[in-house]
């Protein structure tokens, strides 16, 4: 999977995320996302048995894949990847609400609100500065930047990948 040189992405530090939900709410209020729709959402996993438990968290939003499966699946041509910064954007005027993108996305990112069209994270394009989720993270667990720089920063650290990484190449580094 080749990454565009200007591609932006997220770094998620699993050791620091504490599921405080700030990223989720910062996203919603900054991008004025209607209730019931989550451009960013927290997930968690439990392993082991009480009391020897391991609880890990993840904060999921669109990862602006190198090869976005959603765009490939969109017959209406509403989803595209911007050259340069690699942001995957939705033209909601073109979207017919068929939800093929949701079926195609390995991470179940696409969201649908009351108007029935697809919506998701656009790195706070409309706000015109660093995404609210990373800017607000009180644990410094979520970082935004040029993907190559994030990869370099994590080079000495243990990392993991999500299922589906091989086919779509999400722009994220997950440090464990």
């Amino acid at each position: 999977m080749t990454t565009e040189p200007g591609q932006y992405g997220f770094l998620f530090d699993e050791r620091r995320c504490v599921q405080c939900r700030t990223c989720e709410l910062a996203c919603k209020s900054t991008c004025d996302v209607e209730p019931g729709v989550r451009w960013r959402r927290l997930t968690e996993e439990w392993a082991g048995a009480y009391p020897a438990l391991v609880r890990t968290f993840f904060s999921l939003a669109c990862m602006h894949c190198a090869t976005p499966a959603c765009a490939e699946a969109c017959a209406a041509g509403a989803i595209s990847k911007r050259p340069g910064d690699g942001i995957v954007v939705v033209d909601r005027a073109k979207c017919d609400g068929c939800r093929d993108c949701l079926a195609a996305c390995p991470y179940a990112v696409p969201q649908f609100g009351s108007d029935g069209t697809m919506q998701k994270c656009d790195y706070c394009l409309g706000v015109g500065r660093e995404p609210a989720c990373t800017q607000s993270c009180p644990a410094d667990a979520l970082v935004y930047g040029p993907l190559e720089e994030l990869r370099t920063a994590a080079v000495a650290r243990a990392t993991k990948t999500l299922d589906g990484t091989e086919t779509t190449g999400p722009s994220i580094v997950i440090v464990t």
Partner: protein
Amino acid sequence: MVPTICALCGPSSGCGLACYVRDGRLVRVEGMKESPVNRGKLCPKAYASAQWLYSPQRLKHPLRRIGEKGEGRFEQISWDEALDTIAAKLGEQKENYGARSLAVLSPQGRSYKEYILRFMMAHGSPNFGHSGICFIQRALGFAYTLGAFEAGFNPDYERADVILVWGGNPVFSGAPMGELERVLDARERGAKLVVIKPELQPDAAKADLWLPVRPGTDGALALAMLNVIVNERLYDADFVVRRCHGFDELVPHVQQYTPEWAEPITGLPASQIREVARLYGGAASACIRTGNAFDQTVDSNHAVRAVAILMAITGNLDRPGGNVAPAGSTMPPLKPVHLRERYTQEAIDDLVAPELAPGLQPFLEGTSSAYYRCFDSVLTGDPYPIKTIIAPGTQPTVITRGSGRVVEALRELEFFVVIDVMENASMPWADIVVPVTTMYESDHPFEVARTRAGDWLMARSKVVEPLGDYKSDYEFWLDLAVRMGHGDDFWHGDIEACMDYRLENLGLTMQELRAHPSGIVYEPGPMRYEKYDQLFATPSPRISGAPYLPQGKVAVYNTTFEQLGFSPLPEWVEPPESPTATPELLERYPLTFFDTHTTDVYNHGWLRNVPYLREAQPEPWVHVHPGTARGRGIEDGDWVIVESPHGWVKLKAVHFPGIRPDTVMGVHGWWQGCDELDLPGYPLLDGGANVNVLYSTDPEKAFDPVVTAMPKHTLVQLRKCP
């Protein structure tokens, strides 16, 4: 962009906010980067606060009750009419019953508290009804054991080898304020993190060692840790000899509290108790971050003192990596609002139900009566009945225990005033309802936050115009005082003059302060450790001004407590109900229930009406271990009846793998509906979701005798709703 200061949680002064306004409407907020409190960060509650500001449940006009008490029927009146009515009633009652017949309840920590206390002093009532659920209980135990209460609250995370987070949660309370980041940084550099609480909350998920202690037994754990540390000589012998009073009495006293003794009480293996005692006592530097678990338990004064003694005898007091008194300030002192110099012994003797033992009053905030007991006096007349209660920013029907008895008292009460920004759970019984501004609708006061980067002073700015006919909490107390003839003491009602008076020592006026849109930071004084000569001579706020520590040493053996008739050494006290206190109840009520006051999206009894927060937690839940649930045929998401010996509630079961299987946990403060999401509110009493109906209010068993702390744990049974 308009900068202001958040006021959604307390008691610390709030985070800096950058507010974006379009056409006179607040559209979104960000953290203010220049604020040393939050450095550009915020919490979920603040991010959702525009929805809170514009909630359809906002109160827009003062109201007068026209229906029966509890019915919730009101007519609209003006601000002046509301205040005239209150002033007339208080004047009449002062004449007939004496000023002490007025109790004003304490809001969650807010700077307008000082104005309430000033009003109470001018009016002549000592009965500030403090809720006794947070902070003061620990502050008192720390102050009267360590000399400086701040040290107990202030872990030196950067230099600690071992960190104990004990009965608190730095993730759900104040996450943007820096503490969370400090704990995570410490862990990353190799400090060992121990988290002590019944549930594997997100902070516990990061711990090297999680101790799932049974609710309400932290004091027993602390005593057993003292036993191990004393007997294995893990204490700092030099510090104990030179700086502690009564260690020789502690040694025989703690022999009874072995880890084996604590095992059935705490539900922790004795081996694990030894492990944590050795880890804490054996570390070169170790600090403790306590939480509300210590304020809401019937052995509160003992548990706090036991922890304070742990800090001291292990040599972790005011030393690098321990619990330290903060650096001094370079900011000149503000002129106080509170008229403390007017306290008399008569005022203390006149308290209807002292929150803190009278011999320890006034304390940090002034004199106080126990919140719940103010209501009790209405019904018992013992020692005299409170006739008027004013409830500013607090909801007695869901915040204190014994909600049924509170409602009964509200029916009996002669006059009840509610002050709030929003329709609230106690409003149906109010004679007068006074709406006030949110933090976005007022250009005062200024706030001061003490941070590690210095003292931050900033004037609040008016972000939007008030949505109705109301003023701020601060102006309410000024306006009322002027109406009652106390204009000389209340700047003749001029809030700007009041602000200017307070700033006099700083050579600033409020107008000049407003010229600094992100406030002023006063550099911290130099940090010094081992300030024992100074700390151990700290004068107490009692009228005598006598130091907290009569011997000028850590009060391991507390002669002040002894003289007041309390135990000089910390002891274990069983709660009203628990597996070891009342084993006879286990057949009918086999599970321990407790609650949390704060989650990621809620604190206390409000914010359920905010759509962005409500959708994150739409229903009142109870966390149940999956094994415990399945044994009762309860699936994840089933509604269940939770029944204690005192009442019952209906909650939604959430299978939660990280909770003690013998324990279940709910959330305090549920009652409110959310109009926008069409989600319901819940009844206040039995059959609703207000967990306070589950707890004991037995006058003999449910109150710590020194600090009137009331336990938030009991025994329950769970069954699936039919």
